[in-house]
């Protein structure tokens, strides 16, 4: 298995910013953990791709597609740090040049 880790790239994907101190601690730890999980490489497995996710021991249930009352907007928005006129307010997604 490849185990070269570009921590800056992974952080960017995960929306995390590490301080230099964090990085010093976490980087060698993550490299060690990845080396440790590379143990799986030894395992010779012959499982078809289609069978991989069928580990449920029962049939998943369906329910009727009925419209039910949902949370009132006010309650659903209550935890948002910023809201305005019944909407969640977030910083601009597209910025002006």
């Amino acid at each position, binding site marked *: 298995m490849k185990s070269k880790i570009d921590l800056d*790239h992974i952080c960017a994907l995960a929306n995390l*910013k590490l301080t230099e101190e964090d990085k010093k601690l976490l980087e060698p730890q993550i490299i060690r*953990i990845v080396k*440790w999980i590379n143990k799986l490489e030894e395992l010779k*497995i012959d499982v078809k791709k289609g069978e991989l996710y069928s580990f449920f*021991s029962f049939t998943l249930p369906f329910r009727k597609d009925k419209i039910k009352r949902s949370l009132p907007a006010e309650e659903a928005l209550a935890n948002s740090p910023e809201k305005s006129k019944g909407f969640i307010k977030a910083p601009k997604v597209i910025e002006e040049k």
Partner: protein
Amino acid sequence: MSLTSLSATELSTLIKKKEIKAEEIILAYLERIQEREKEISAFITVLEERALFSAKKIDKKKKKGKLAGIPVAIKDNILTKGIRTTCASKILDNYIPPYSATVVKKLEKEDAVIIGKTNLDEFAMGSSTENSAFFPTRNPWDLRRVPGGSSGGSAAAVAAGETAASLGSDTGGSIRQPGAFCGVVGLKPTYGHVSRYGLVAFASSLDQIGPLTRTVEDNALLTQIIAGPDPQDSTISSQPVPDYQKELGKRLASVKAAYLKEKSLEGIDNEVKDSYYQTLRALEETGAELWEMDFPSWEYALACYYIIAPSEASSNLARYDGIRYRFRHPRYSNLKEMYLNTRSEGFGQEVKRRILLGTFALSSGYYDAYYMKAAQARKLICQEFEKAFAKVNFILTPTTPEPAFLIGEKEDPIAMYLSDIFTVTASLAGIPALTLPIGLSKGNLPIGIQIMTNFFQESRIFKLAFLLEKKVKFDNNKLNLHKKEE
């Protein structure tokens, strides 16, 4: 007799006979919390007023539920409407859920009293409760030691007599390992037996809610109430739930149990090994057939788990972005910076470690080598269980490789991960597993045995655990844990 040393079943009988009021029970437990909490720190929130109000309301009811007046503590990653639910994380510090988890609704429907919200490793990631963003919880048996984790607060609160029962959540051992460390009974039910609606998601294909109690009978009683179909969880079985408590009294037909070869217990603490084999001998005396078995795939279970669980976590925790859940970093100049600052400040180190690990395993170029390989290993573990259950109906292992370790002892994350060596396999396969206290080490630390069985056979687990409980006579009142201190 102190009320806080009685089991939930005993308290429930007293309530039914009208020999005691719910209010008296709750007052006794609140007093106990006040006495012990300074040392143990099992709770993030104690719901004193709310619990007393509920108890008084229950006392006035003519027709009372099955758990009338029984105090139950809830792990703080299970939503409680209008009550702060933090996941022991800074990022959810002030989060007040607008709805309750199905399990909480089910408990309250049976008149249980929610006494408080318990401490955990942040987002249930950890094996010691040291990863809580607020404070560590201490093991009531030895305050220098951890209670295990991630449901450490739930286990410690039951062990110390601060509640009659509690709910925890288990992703790779988070009910069973703290259960063993604190000398209480803990069940991880079959995946899909208990609704996950309102459980803050960590690894959705592994997470299950289950009870921690002082006795097997209490555990059966609580499981019976929280399990069963829920239209709000699409990964739940529609199977009806048996009356587990009633089933306990019935005979357990033909016990065929697999146990581990001494060779596979290399590196395991000697006292744990001794208690394990002693319990096996006691079981054999009851006429059970014991089979020595080998599970070669288990060697890979932890590596498999530490790819699957962080991968799912990295996806599940993407929602904490500073937009919906209270905490937003005050300094940012644009959206991206707000995400980065909020998440970097809001998450603790273990959570960051797992998000990064999961993001790596799922990233382009690595997905096949890691995530796919782990999914294959998981399938292999499932197949091995399937093969074993064709021959036997139980598999018995120690719950943990050692009794409770010291606070601060395991700084190396891999050493900490090894705590779950016996528990992750049942999580990966989705089968039920229970920890039962079977003895004390020379240092007076509890030791647990893990009983695993096939899907939806909780009834059989309870019956076997009930039988063993009588044989081993573990005294969880030892060290006067529940008695009022003079």
